[in-house]
Every structure is written in structure tokens, then in C-alpha cells.
């Protein structure tokens, strides 16, 4: 039997504006509870919202980056419902005319690119945050109330959890590229809801759509989708169906659990918010935003291939995150060797990041340090192996590679006179190897070089040692 999984996503992204959506309160994460509040974001009687133009600009940026149509005439609507985190009894959002419509994000699969279509991107305000205490109390922090959000809704175009993960990665990296959000899932600035069901492609039978909420990492999202996919398929095999419901991912149990069943579609009694004038977006403004838009990932990748003569794969890896790409370009300012820098970043640097599970911007390694290090290698002052050791130390201490090399006396010995004595000693102590080499055993040469390197604590230039040994043997 063959099954097809159908996945659609709804992603809420907090926009990194300086102030909130409808008031002048600071839009910053954290802070003492209920200190970033004013009459407007607390919904006090008589207060009125005034829209933050930067929030609209950021949403348009996202719309352009994701190939959406920008609706030049739109409005803000009220979504009416009651909840403790909602100060006005309604959320200011957008109903029938979202700011951005359509659009798509391309993901790279093994057999080529796939377009994941978007339904819409609309702007809305965030709610406060509830904390349930051990005593059974619920505390409310309204610092988040009124923070600008965009909600991105996809078409159900993803067919595996991996596709959904690639989509989310691409979405996040693009949003970070265009600098509209820091997309930190752990701080809630990127939140994702999943709609998933499975179709039996032979019988046409399909499960009801399950919604999964409360995901706080991409890993969790993938696990939740994998779990649900299996659950749906199992039910189909048994001739059963899923319940229309909202589930959440339980990280401890490693499974999804029921949050609530979905009854009739909720009626939010949408109506236009008369407190905010209709929004008209001049085409000139859209053009201005488009022109100011930073280079998008796929453009950057093409440019890297062209400008730095990199392979498609290398360019892809280096431009996957904006920070990594700028780290690469920044490093090139200190050493003019695109291949060398690319090799080192793709090799030792990325391996290190992966092991430590950190991003490049969170480490002590600076482009200047890497540039310095690679210059030391390129000029032959240290060799490759020493370079790796120094890099490790830079990661740990953040010290200048030159300082490390000097302090530890790691400068490569390139002066023949300094090594000659060692080479002669090694040869005289390893007569058998010399004979072996002469008898055609090439491996013996490697052994002799290794002995010299060992004796010089790795500081000798291996090529030079190689040459000197051959010269001496030939003279014998």
C-alpha cells in the first residue's frame, strides 16, 4: 500500500521592530513582567491603536522575499474572542484582505527544487503571555501584548516531515537575511503550527486533518510530524480515522497528545477595526522596499559561485545562513584566497559548530582571526596540522592566532640550518629505513619525515624536510 502525507504550516513570526505594533512601547524580549506596557497595549478604556509603519514595511519585505502579491489596499480587522492573554476581547488582525497573498518558497530536494506555495501573509498583534505556577495560579505578562507579528500560511504542499523541515529552514534563513525577525523559536519569536493528514493513494481514503501546536524547535516539529504520520498510517491500515483535533507535542513522552477536539468552526465575528484608517500602500513604497531589500539566499549563492568561483554545493552551504555567508566574505578581507577560506569554513569550522550546536555568530572566532590563521598557513609560517590546533584554541580562548603561535613557539621552521642537525641524526639512527627506501620502499621516506616532524614538535616544514632527506640520501 502507498500513502501520501499532506502537510501545511502556519507560522507566526514576531517582527523585530523597535516598538510595538500600535504603541510606542519597546518591542524587546524579556524584561520584568508588565513593564513594557501602556494604555494602548493594555487596552485601557479610551486608548486607540496607531499602526507602526515599520511593521508594515517588514511584512512587505517578507512578502517580496517570498514572491507574494502585495495588496496595496488593505485594512485591519478585529478577531473577537475572549482569553486572559487578550486585553481588548479582540485581536487586531487581518481577515479577508491580507497584506500579502500567494507566493512561494523553493526548497532543494535530491531530485531538484520544489515550490511550496503560500496562501497568505497577514499582519497582526501578539497577545500577552500566561504562566501557570505550581500553586495552580496563572500569571499574566502583557509585555508581549501588541508585539507585531506576521502569520504565514502555506498551502498543503509538503509531503514529508523532511520537506517541512527544509521549508522551515529556508523560511527562517530568509527572514533572518532580510532582517525582519531574529526567528528564535526558544524565545517564541518564531512559532509554528502544523496541519497534517495522510491519504491512501490506492483507495483514496484519507484521515482527518490533525493540528499540532506548541512546537518550540524544528527538531520537535519534525519528530511530531513523524509521529503523526505513523499514527495516521496505522489508523488507515486498521480502517480507522483520526479525530479532528488539536494536539501538542510532548517532549518528555516523545509523542503528540490531545489538546482539544475541534467542534464547529469557531466564529470570530470578524469586522473592520474602525480605529485604524484603511491602509493604502503606494507602489513607489513597495519599489523602495524592494530596492532596499538585502540580497536573498539564492541570489547570494549564485553570486558566490560566480564571484568566488565556488562549486554549487559549497556556495549553497556557505550561504545557507546570512551570518555564515558574511563571515566568509568578511574573512576574505584578511586573506585573498576564496578556495582556502571556503575549505576551512566548510571543514573544521562547520564541524566545530555542529559539534557544539552553536551558530557562527555565537563563537569566539572572528573573520579577522580566521584570516590571520589562514595567512599564517598560506605563507608557510605554520603548517596545516598546527593550523588546526591553533583554530581549536581560537575557538576556546578567542585569542589572536599570531599571539597563540608566538606564545607556543609554533612558527614553522623553514631554515634548513635549523633542521639539518635533526635530519642527520634521524637518518643515522634509522639506517634500515634509509636502506629500505633505497630498495624502492617509498613508505620508508614517510617514516623518516615523520621522525623529523616528531623531533621538531611538528614545527618543521614537512615539504622542506622531505626535500632535505632526499638530498642527503642521494648524496650517500
Amino acid at each position, binding site marked *: 500500500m502507498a500513502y501520501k502525507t499532506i502537510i501545511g504550516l502556519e507560522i507566526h513570526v514576531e517582527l523585530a521592530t523597535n516598538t510595538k505594533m500600535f504603541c510606542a512601547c519597546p518591542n524587546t524580549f524579556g524584561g520584568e513582567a508588565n513593564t513594557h506596557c501602556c494604555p494602548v497595549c493594555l487596552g485601557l*478604556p*479610551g486608548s486607540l491603536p496607531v499602526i507602526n509603519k515599520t511593521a508594515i514595511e517588514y511584512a512587505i519585505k517578507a512578502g517580496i522575499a517570498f514572491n507574494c502579491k502585495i495588496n496595496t489596499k488593505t485594512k485591519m480587522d*478585529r478577531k473577537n474572542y475572549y482569553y486572559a492573554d487578550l486585553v481588548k476581547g479582540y485581536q487586531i488582525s487581518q481577515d479577508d484582505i491580507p497584506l500579502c497573498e500567494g507566493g512561494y518558497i523553493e526548497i532543494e530536494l535530491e531530485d531538484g527544487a520544489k515550490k511550496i506555495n503560500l496562501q497568505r501573509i497577514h499582519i497582526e498583534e501578539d497577545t500577552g503571555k500566561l504562566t501557570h505556577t505550581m500553586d495552580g495560579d496563572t500569571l499574566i505578562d502583557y509585555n508581549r501584548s501588541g508585539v507585531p507579528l506576521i502569520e504565514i500560511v502555506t498551502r498543503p504542499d509538503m509531503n514529508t516531515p523532511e520537506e517541512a523541515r527544509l521549508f522551515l529552514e529556508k523560511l527562517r534563513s530568509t527572514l533572518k537575511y532580510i532582517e525582519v525577525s531574529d526567528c528564535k523559536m526558544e524565545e517564541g519569536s518564531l512559532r509554528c503550527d502544523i496541519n497534517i493528514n495522510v491519504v491512501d493513494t490506492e483507495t483514496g481514503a484519507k484521515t482527518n486533518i490533525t493540528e499540532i501546536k506548541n512546537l518550540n524547535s524544528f527538531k520537535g516539529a519534525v519528530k511530531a510530524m513523524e509521529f503523526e504520520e505513523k499514527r495516521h498510517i496505522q489508523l488507515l491500515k486498521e480502517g480507522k480515522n483520526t479525530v479532528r483535533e488539536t494536539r501538542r507535542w510532548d517532549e518528555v513522552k516523545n509523542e503528540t497528545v490531545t489538546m482539544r477536539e475541534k467542534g464547529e468552526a469557531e466564529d470570530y465575528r470578524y*469586522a473592520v477595526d474602525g480605529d485604524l*484608517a484603511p491602509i493604502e500602500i503606494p507602489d513607489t513604497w513597495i519599489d523602495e522596499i524592494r530596492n532596499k531589500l538585502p540580497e536573498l539566499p539564492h541570489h547570494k549563492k549564485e553570486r558566490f559561485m560566480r564571484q568566488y568561483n565556488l562549486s554549487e554545493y559549497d556556495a549553497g552551504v556557505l550561504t545557507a545562513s546570512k551570518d555564515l555567508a558574511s563571515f566568509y566574505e568578511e574573512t576574505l578581507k584578511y586573506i585573498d584566497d576564496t578556495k582556502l577560506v571556503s575549505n576551512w569554513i566548510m571543514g573544521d569550522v562547520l564541524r566545530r559548530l555542529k559539534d557544539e550546536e552553536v551558530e557562527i555568530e555565537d563563537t569566539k572566532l572572528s573573520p579577522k582571526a580566521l584570516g590571520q590563521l589562514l595567512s599564517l598557513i598560506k605563507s608557510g609560517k605554520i603548517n596545516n596540522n598546527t593550523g588546526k590546533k591553533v583554530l581549536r584554541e581560537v575557538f576556546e580562548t578567542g585569542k589572536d592566532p599570531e599571539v597563540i603561535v608566538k606564545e607556543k613557539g609554533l612558527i614553522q621552521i623553514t631554515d634548513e640550518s635549523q633542521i639539518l642537525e635533526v635530519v642527520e641524526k634521524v637518518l643515522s639512527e634509522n639506517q634500515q629505513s634509509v636502506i629500505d627506501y633505497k630498495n624502492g620502499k617509498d613508505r620508508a621516506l614517510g617514516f623518516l619525515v615523520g621522525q623529523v616532524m616528531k623531533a621538531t614538535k611538528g614545527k618543521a616544514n614537512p615539504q622542506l624536510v622531505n626535500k632535505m632527506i632526499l638530498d642527503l640520501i642521494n648524496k650517500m
Partner: protein
Amino acid sequence: MDIVKLSAVEIKEKILKNELSATEVVKAHLNRIEEIDKDINAFISINKEGALEAAEKVDEKIKNGEELGALGGIPIALKDNIVTKDTKTTCGSKMLENYRSPYDATVVEKIKAQDGIIIGKTNMDEFAMGSSNETSFFGPTRNPVNTNLVPGGSSGGSAAAVKAEEVALALGTDTGGSTRQPAAYCDIVGIKPSYGLVSRYGVVSLANTLDTVGVFGRDVSDAALMLSAIVGYDEKDSTSYENPTHLVVEKDLEPTEYIKGMKIGIPREIYLDQIDKRLIGVMDKVIKVFQSLGAKVEEITLPHLEYGLSTYHVISAAEISSNMARFDGLRYGYRAKEYSTLDELYINSRNEAFGDEVKRRILMGTYYLSMGLGREYYEKALKMRTLIIDDFNKAFKDYDIILTPTSPILPFQLGKLKDEPLTKDLTSIFTAPVNLAGLCAMSIPCGYVDGLPVGLQIIGDRFKEMNIIKAGLAFEGGMKNGI
């Protein structure tokens, strides 16, 4: 000299000329309140200390020869749905019985900045829902003309306070007639400015696409003075406009001068079945006054006027249901003592703190916004609103002002219409369409019938406040001259 009988314009002049001190003015009005308000119940709170302090500051300015603001020393009352830091803001409801706003409304800041003296906060129908001031949690206000009568509403307290000479000027609000109708019932002048002319920031929303801040005075010049002091764009209200009209009244012209060249339309649709027949005679007299002042008066048609009230009813209720949602007992205001879940907290608090009229409108509005038949009413009402706007637009191409009675029903006895909310709603039949179209209008006294005051409504195009003020000044002068 009986200070409380002075007009706002006169008070200002006398203070400027050092004939009166602001402190004397304020004390006289506070005494008047002390003396009469137990019979009128116009005030919910009085800020005696604040008022005296503000008066002292004005007197200090005069002493130091500093320039005085446009409202220098004039005692002013505010409807209790305009938020103030200094006193509580109750909206006439148990829900906000002890609510204190942490900030001042923009109009309050403007009054303070222009040396106006805020005496206190006035009684009103609960959350401005009503037209008789009988739905107030703080008891009904009585009409100073005749205390057996209602003062109208929902700004009945402000109208009564001005009529009873407790203050010279007052602010109300007007969403469907809540300034004009009480002005008519209390025999004073009330102006509802065009939507957007005055900032709504700090005015507790009723129906936010209709809400305006209204002004009261005992004559047109006073009301115009009050209005000119509070207009203008406010960055905190994105539906406000930079003062598009120049509210400069040329003083002491002959009545005919004010109205020179004006064309006046009388909609034939005003003569409906529900209108008090005594008003027909009054309108005939009004037309004669304007004609004798030299204005051209013609019959016009506003074909959709008759749907104005039901359109208003649906749209206002829909907006009310959403605007009232924030009063949930969680962050401020009344909270029920007994509840075991969040839903129960909401339900019990709202059930215990809201009166019947508020509940009625929330229920209706929730229905109009809900999927199904209710929603169809709402969508229809939105369409009808544009037709009503078109009607007015057409009329204002040819006419400068339009005249109607302010209310089709004359002031009624307190308690008489208590259980007839629909009849009470009828009082807005000529006023509500003006809000739907965002126009400006004034109610001005036009005499009495059978001992009951009658108000004339003068409607002007959006941001053409000067037309209604000039017409009002002409009419006032004409009446005085006994035309």
C-alpha cells in the same frame, strides 16, 4: 452680578479685564452645584480641589501679565466617558464604578493647556447607551427646565449641568445624537463635529466609526468657543484630521450677514408618521425665520433617511459588542466575587456589572457579527450606510445646510419610556444618519411648545462646521430680534 449666569465668552472677558477672578468664578459655580445638584444629579464626581487650584493658576497668570489660553478661567464639565487622571471615569456604570484612568484624554489635555477649568464629571446613560440618562448606575439626571422631565441622553448630565448654570461649558459625546438630543431637551446649544475633527483618544468607545466628542453651551458663541479649543489632528488617533475648517467667528454681525447667500434644504422625509405633530408648526416657523433672514429655503429629498435608524442600530450594536469586550473583570473594573473558571469570571462579572440596555446591545451586536442571518443584516447595513452618505453628498452639492427637528419626540417624563427602548431609540431618527455620514450638526433652541423645549438640528457637510455655526448665529439672532 450673578456669575453663574454669565456666558463662557463673558467670563473670559471679565477675567481678562480683571473684573472677576477665576477663583471667584469657580467658587460661584461650585456653590451653585452644591445648591442645586441634589435635584438635578448632573454630576458623578466633582473635582473641587483641582478646580480651585487651576483657578489660582489662572489668577496667577493674570497677575503676572502672562497670556491666557482660549478657555482661561471658564468652568467646564466633562461627560464621564472621557478619561481623566484627576477623577474617576465611570461611564455611568457599575463596571467602572471606581475606575481611575492613568492618563488624560487628548481633549482634557487641550482644555488644561488652554487654561480651562475642569469642575467635574457628568452623569450619563450607562456607557452612553440610552437617550434619557435613565440607564445610569448613578441614578437618573433630571432636566433643569422641568425636573419631571428627562434631560435626554446619553450626555444628559453635561446638558443639564450647562442648563442649570453649574458650569458654562461642557463636553459630551455624540454617536447617534447623544449631544444634540439632550441639548434640545435642555434648551441649550449642542454641536456634534464632523467625524475626525476632534481626537477620540481617551474617549471610551461606544461605536468607534460613529463616535465624536460633542460640545455644549448656552448659546452658539459659547459652543463654538468650546469646539474651537479641542479640534485638531492627534497623532494618537489615526482617524483624526488636522483642523480643516477655520473656526473663527466674526463677532456681533447682523444676523442677516452671517447667512448671506446660504441655501437651505428641508428634507421632505422628515414629516414621518412617528413625528410629534406639534413639530410641524415649529418647522414652519423656523423656515419663516430663515427666509426672513434672507436665506433661500427649499424642499429636498434624502431617499434613504428612513433607513438611517435601523442602519445605525445594526452598525452601532455590532461595534458596541466588540468595544465592550475589554470589560471582562480581569485587569480593571468590577470583578464578580464568585467564580471557579475563567469563563465564569467573565460571565458573572459582566452579568453583575452591566445594566439591561448594555446587555441588550451587546447581544444584538454579537448576533449581527455572527455567521448566518445576523451577519446579513450587518452587511446590508454597511451598504445602506454608503447610500445614506451618497444622499447627503448629493444634497450638499446644492445646499449649504439641511434642517430637521433634532428629535421627533419632545422631552418626556422621567420613567415614562422606561420599558420602551424602541420608542426611546426613535429619538435618534434625525440625528443618527448624521453620524453614519460623518457630518457636523448643531442642535439649537427654537422655542417651546406646551412648555416643552424644542431643538432645531442644523446639519452641515463634513468639516463645514463654519456653515452650521454661522447659520446658528443667524438663527439665534433672528429669534432674539423676535422675527
